[in-house]
């Protein structure tokens, strides 16, 4: 039975009747089911307008819930309705047309015209969101009901971007309204629940909606916990992308703690259980939570040492490098490196945040002459930060480190970041060190550092270093070929001046 739903006033402006919360959840399901089963009316399947029924058309109940009151996505004009406004599909098509027009003007160099067109698009979009209080609901149904367009289908891609933008703005709108008036939170929760319900329809859709709308955003709440845990369970059975499940669980836990819906003790207890017994998504999400917790970090690090789980170690090192205080992060990074996850990425990340912390850690280990592999990574992280302090760290390593491999790493950093004179002198100094200049393997590695000078256009430095390297007896045929290749790109004909 169709129940008329007034288009105005804005239903989001008051608490939604409880039954609509669940009906709204069914809307995208209905759309998916209808598309899959080919149940949508021909007019609705025939093109982009399928995203919504025309406002002035007879009410159309979602087929999959035909015996229930229709979803809030199905609007029926009330008796005293104002003059018919545009439908969602009509707005979308106009936005697509404006987008194409703006692209054409921009490509033709008509900046003023493009700006004017862009203003038209903004006004049109604002009008759509103002006039259609359930635009985000229609956008979700459209996204769930239609697959990713081909790369050359420009209107199709624009249309999908409009749908995504409408959903994003709609979620933000409902979130703002919920913050202002908690009684309106159900409107947000329902839309989020509907989005979660749509995710298992396909991996591409799961990535698109989860990454674009839910991950790292404040929308997931306790009411969504069963749905998120269901997705996590599906991922354990390889029926849902594990990375999406993990990110959603991480976001949910973050929000639960931030909103005060779960105490940190309660979450930590759950995470601990999942860390040891959960599936891959659960273990990773739990690890990410626990490594940020001062009380439980040691447990995670102990697990990394015992299990030598390199993938988890790399992932947690990246989390630590981004989110923990530098000194604490270094503890995680050092543990990850010690178990074999000796990737440079987390050190580079931390170097961009706080070179000073890396330098302090390096100096401590240099003074004690311990952990040469960790020193190597610390020099990489600091040396490529692109700051004067980072360059000083690399210079210190080149001048003072007893480990030849750390010195080679310092040369890479200095050739990439320190400018012409310092880069060239760094290579020259390394060549003077017999542990490098007379060692075929290290010398071959050093040759690769010349590429940094080539990329900076330092042809004179390359000319001089190339001449010297060609005469070095430890240069292997393979390293010689690498050298000539680099010189050929940097110097005319690959010829040095002598």
């Amino acid at each position, binding site marked *: 039975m169709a129940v008329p739903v007034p288009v105005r006033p804005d239903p989001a402006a008051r608490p939604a009747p409880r039954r609509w919360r669940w009906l709204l959840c069914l809307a995208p399901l209905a759309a998916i089911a209808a598309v899959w089963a080919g149940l949508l009316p021909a007019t609705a399947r025939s093109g982009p307008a399928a995203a919504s029924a025309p406002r002035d058309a007879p009410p159309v109940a979602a087929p999959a819930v035909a015996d229930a009151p229709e979803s809030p996505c199905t609007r029926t004009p009330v008796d005293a309705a104002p003059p018919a406004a545009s439908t969602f599909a009509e707005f979308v098509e106009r936005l697509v047309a404006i*987008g194409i027009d703006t692209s054409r003007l921009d490509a033709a160099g008509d900046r003023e015209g*493009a700006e004017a*067109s862009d203003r038209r698009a903004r006004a049109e979009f604002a009008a759509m969101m103002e006039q259609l209080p359930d635009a985000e609901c229609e956008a979700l149904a459209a996204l769930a009901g239609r697959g990713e367009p081909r790369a050359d289908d420009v209107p199709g891609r624009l249309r999908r971007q409009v749908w995504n933008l409408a959903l994003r703005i709609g979620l933000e709108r409902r979130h703002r309204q919920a913050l202002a008036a908690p009684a309106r939170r159900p409107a947000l929760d329902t839309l989020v629940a509907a989005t979660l319900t749509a995710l298992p329809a396909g991996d591409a859709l799961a990535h698109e909606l989860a*990454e674009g709308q839910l991950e790292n955003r404040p929308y997931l709440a306790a009411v969504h916990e069963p749905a998120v845990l269901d997705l996590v369970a599906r991922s354990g059975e390889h029926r849902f992308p594990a990375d999406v499940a993990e990110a959603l669980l991480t976001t949910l836990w973050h929000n639960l703690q931030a909103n005060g819906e779960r105490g940190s003790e309660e979450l930590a207890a759950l995470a601990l259980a999942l860390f040891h017994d959960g599936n891959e998504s659960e273990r990773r999400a739990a690890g990410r939570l626990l490594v940020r917790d001062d009380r439980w970090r040691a447990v995670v690090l102990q697990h990394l040492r015992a299990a030598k789980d390199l993938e988890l170690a790399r992932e947690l090192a990246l989390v630590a490098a981004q989110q923990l205080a530098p000194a604490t992060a270094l503890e995680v990074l050092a543990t990850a490196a010690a178990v074999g996850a000796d990737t440079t*990425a987390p050190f*580079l990340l931390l170097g961009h945040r706080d070179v000073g912390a890396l330098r302090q850690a390096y100096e401590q280990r240099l003074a004690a002459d311990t952990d040469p592999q960790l020193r190597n990574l610390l020099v990489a992280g600091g040396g490529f930060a692109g700051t004067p302090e980072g360059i000083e760290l690399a210079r210190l390593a080149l001048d003072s480190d007893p480990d030849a491999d750390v010195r080679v790493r310092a040369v890479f950093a200095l050739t990439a*970041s320190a400018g012409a004179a310092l880069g060239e002198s760094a290579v020259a100094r390394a060549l003077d060190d017999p542990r490098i200049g007379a060692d075929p393997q290290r010398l071959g590695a050093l040759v690769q550092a010349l590429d*940094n000078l080539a990329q900076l256009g330092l042809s004179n430095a390359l000319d001089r270093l190339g001449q010297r390297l060609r005469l070095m007896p430890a240069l292997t045929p393979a390293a010689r070929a690498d050298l000539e290749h680099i010189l050929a790109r940097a110097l005319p004909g690959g010829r040095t001046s002598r």
Partner: protein
Amino acid sequence: MHALSAIPLFAAAALPLLAQTACPHTKTKDIPASYVMGPTVDCDAGINLAIGGVTVTSAQRACPLFAVVTPTHQEIVKSDLATRTEQNGNAQELLVTFHCNPHYLLFVRLSDTCDLDRTQVIGAVPLLRTIECESATTRI
């Protein structure tokens, strides 16, 4: 990972020298090309880019600040056969930085791009090959 792979590269590379009198019974193991992405910024475009023999792909709206690309290389592991390894080159480990270049004029950001900013060589990884020991078969 095999225990022997923990041998520092340059220490392990010295093993062939000993092979004149003793075969180290080692061989190479391929380490597939890989990349690690740094944090991403919101952008209406991600990346799908071939760099150093690796296709680096990000989420569709995530532009990474950087990616570390490690090409295919080899490590040394134990062998049951009378073989040893020798280095026949190096490959570059790359630090690739990106920035989001939004064509903000377009309301619908069709042409947003996550652009490659700079490529730097941050290190070298060994290219190794396995060869037969000349004559000796003694394990060391």
